[in-house]
């Protein structure tokens, strides 16, 4: 009984974050900000729902599977986000006009595919 | 739900065929994908749709108690998905090659053989 209600809470929370994620992707102004919404809320939403599943079934096999789902999303989602965000940035998907800073700008060489680090950090790091 | 599925499948068929009728071979591929999905869903729908009773025998038992969804239809659909996938993979590469050889994606320019 209690467990069911707890499960209900988890799935409600999960669904809520899912909604947030999709609202984010719907509303946010540029690619990278949209990705903030999806990467985090997607993982969290799915994770919470899986917690609900764990609680509802109370079974070791199910728990293992639900944990696996959580682990898989946690592993894959940021990698996918990295791949797509990086690609999007490099091919020149425009950033939101209210973006205040871009330290990456101009540091990627299209010919050699070298991504330079900022000069001040280079110096600092090179000190032994 | 059958009614809605019927409408859905009809839409799939229509969309598939509309895409296949375009001049761009690239759209043809999309049409083929939709067509394959439509046919599979059709089998699924007419075989009868049951909610939440997968044809899995519980652990340690030999029989399913109570009703279960039609496993034969599922097996058939599975096979047909796989075949559809294979054929589609071939079609994709074919169209890629054709575009490469003919240097266009316009079907209207691929009528030298008739």
């Amino acid at each position, binding site marked *: 009984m209690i467990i069911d209600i707890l499960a209900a809470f988890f799935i409600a929370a999960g669904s809520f974050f899912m909604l947030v994620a999709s609202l984010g992707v719907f509303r946010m102004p540029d690619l990278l900000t949209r990705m903030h919404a999806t990467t985090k809320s997607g993982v969290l939403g799915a994770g919470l729902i899986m917690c609900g599943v764990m609680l509802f079934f109370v079974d070791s096999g199910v728990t293992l599977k639900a944990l696996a789902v959580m682990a898989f999303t946690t592993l894959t989602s940021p990698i996918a986000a990295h791949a797509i965000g990086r690609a999007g940035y490099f*091919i020149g998907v425009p950033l939101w006009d209210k973006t205040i800073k871009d330290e990456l700008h101009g540091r990627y060489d299209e010919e050699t595919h070298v991504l330079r680090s900022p000069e001040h950090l280079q110096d600092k790091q090179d000190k032994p | 739900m059958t009614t809605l599925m019927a409408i859905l499948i009809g839409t799939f068929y229509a969309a598939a065929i509309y895409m296949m009728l375009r001049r761009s071979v690239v759209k043809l591929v999309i049409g083929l994908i939709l067509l394959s999905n439509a046919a599979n869903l059709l089998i699924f729908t007419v075989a009868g749709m049951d909610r939440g009773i997968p044809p899995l025998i519980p652990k340690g038992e030999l029989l399913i108690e109570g009703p279960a969804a039609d496993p034969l239809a599922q097996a058939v659909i599975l096979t047909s998905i796989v075949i559809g996938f294979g054929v589609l993979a071939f079609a994709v590469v074919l169209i890629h090659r054709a575009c490469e050889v003919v240097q266009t994606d316009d079907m209207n320019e691929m009528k030298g053989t008739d």
Partner: protein
Amino acid sequence: MKPRRFNMRSLILNTGSSLLLPLLVLFSLFLLLRGHDEPGGGFIGGLVAAAAVALKLFAEDYKAARDMLRVHPLQLVGIGLVLAAVASLPPLFVGESFFTAQWWSLDLPIFGELKLSTPLLFDIGVFLGVIGTVLTVVFTLAEAEHS
């Protein structure tokens, strides 16, 4: 705006994919072996395994993926086909109809009773065949990029 070019090589992606790769392969074997009792089976397992190699290809390059597989995917297809076809033959030697399932029980010290069967052999054939096919297509296309 003129599209810019960039390179897929990314440390994060490379490392991430090499973390995920064993996981995917393991998972595919898991799906293959449990298929007879739980959702899964040769086809599903094969697709996951193929996806794993494809990931390698996408995250690194064609050569890395090709090296990882060692054999040519078309050979994999051949082996898969032979296994699947051969799995249909054993019953003929015991006077049963073509494709009749044969089950052998093996008692192993640690794993306990291991059930070997022609359906399992068959499913492994399917598994290899699927991997081989998907990878043939993927590799062929990737190779074509270089030519």
